[in-house]
């Protein structure tokens, strides 16, 4: 065992089945095996159902996994949509419910769920007040909308995911201008992108995550383990920043 590459926290795991992927469905046993295989200290789990079927109802599936694997450091990430009669009464109440459940972060899918990010101000305020990060896939939001949220809620940590390899120009502007924006390693595929951010003093904005359930976890694991970062920075990215961000509502 290499102590530098064990004990990482996986900030993006998705439980459930994807309808068009060769990745197998990730149930409790699969998440536990994932933790074992890569000697992880824990994971932040959201529900595929919340993304692809029932945004609010799917949150129970994330919490079930988190409660079941709480002793393994697994935390739930819930999904939010705008308050809409019949679907969701109140974003403030949703956040309060989440805090009581020990939820560690929220995820939004504005593009997939068909709403403007500006409809969630009540959510952003609630998350900021409770120190819960907001997670968003790059494809779900425009860069101007992302930076608008970051500007209006400067104490709200925002973790952008699935950046790919073609967006460093936009990413740089977002990170440089907003100290509350982070990027996780799910499909963060730019050549030397990790090393480039570290060389530009932004290593503390990188968060290890695999996207297990959606992506091949080997990508992020090898990307960080065989990176050009020194051991201390690998630990920072692999575990320490997540430990600071995802506290399960406990400050």
């Amino acid at each position: 065992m290499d102590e530098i590459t064990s004990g990482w926290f996986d900030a993006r795991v998705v439980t459930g089945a994807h309808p068009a992927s060769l990745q197998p469905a990730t149930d409790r046993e699969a998440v536990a095996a994932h933790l074992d295989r890569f000697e992880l200290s824990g994971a932040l789990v959201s529900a595929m159902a919340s993304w692809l079927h029932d945004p609010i109802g799917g949150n129970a599936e994330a919490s079930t996994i988190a409660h079941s694997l709480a002793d393994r450091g697994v935390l739930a990430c819930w999904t939010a949509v705008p308050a809409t009669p019949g679907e969701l009464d109140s974003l403030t109440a949703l956040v309060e419910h989440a805090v009581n459940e020990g939820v560690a972060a929220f995820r939004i899918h504005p593009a997939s769920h068909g709403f403007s990010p500006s409809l969630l101000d009540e959510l952003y305020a609630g998350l900021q007040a409770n120190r819960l990060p907001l997670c968003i896939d790059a494809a779900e939001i425009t860069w101007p909308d992302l930076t608008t949220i970051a500007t209006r809620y400067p104490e709200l940590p925002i973790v952008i995911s699935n950046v790919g390899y073609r967006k460093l120009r936009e990413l740089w502007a977002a990170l440089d201008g907003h100290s509350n924006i982070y990027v996780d390693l799910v499909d963060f595929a730019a050549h030397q992108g990790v090393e480039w951010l570290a060389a530009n003093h932004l290593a503390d904005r990188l968060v290890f995550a695999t996207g297990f359930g959606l992506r091949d976890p080997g990508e992020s694991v090898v990307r960080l383990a065989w990176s050009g970062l020194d051991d201390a920075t690998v630990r920072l990215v692999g575990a320490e920043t997540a430990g600071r961000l995802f506290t399960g509502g406990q400050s």
Partner: protein
Amino acid sequence: MIGRRPTQRIIDVHAHLGPYSLFFIPDPDAATMVAVMDLTGTDATVLSANRAIQQDAHLGNSQSLAAVDAHPGRIAAYAVINPWQKPERELERLAADERFVGIKVHPTLHRYPVTGARYAAVWEFAEATGCPVLSHSEHQSPYDAPAMFQTVAERYPGAAVMLGHAGITPAGVAEAIEAASRYESLWLEVCGSQMTGPMIGAMVDQVGSGRVLFGSDFPFIDQRMSLGRVVCAPLTESQRQDVLSGNARKLFRWRPLPGESGERGVDETDE
């Protein structure tokens, strides 16, 4: 958990070099690529300069040769043949310069079908010499969908063709596997943003571990993304080593890769 140092030896058969206009690439130079190779256990990389595929084949091929000259023990070059940019001239250059070990074509980028007559000289050269050809392949592309390579294999059975990205998408990979299963001259290369270890496992299961090749597309994409999929893929260690380097050493025999004598025959590395 994986350690901080690789345990396998690697040959990367799909790489590039230099900037690309559509997005920013940090440090896309050859020296940085070799530094990454040192971290990942990569003995040799075969590359084609981004300038050669994106804009000017002749100038870009010169950049590739300069990278070989700067790192002769680690980097080898493909000659990019653009069917619209004097392909005969570049083929003559390839034939005369031993720093080139293969041909790279990109039908989708150059908007010309891989089955078209302008590529005929490429396949004839490959068949006559044993020079391997790496082509972009992309599901549903009118220029290089995996099924189109069956036509190339029918016409030029002696030309070894690597299907870069193996069709890219899950459906494309399925199509590439079908083509490679039918024609032994077709090889599958594994880099691509939608690739997964299970998909690589499917290639090995259905085509055999002897015609699946590691490539990464770096520095277009970080090398460790593709490498991580293979390192963690559901393969036996023997299969994994075939993919990571054994098959490349078997395929690149026309001109030796860095670190190779060029005298080893295919039978000596077959299972």
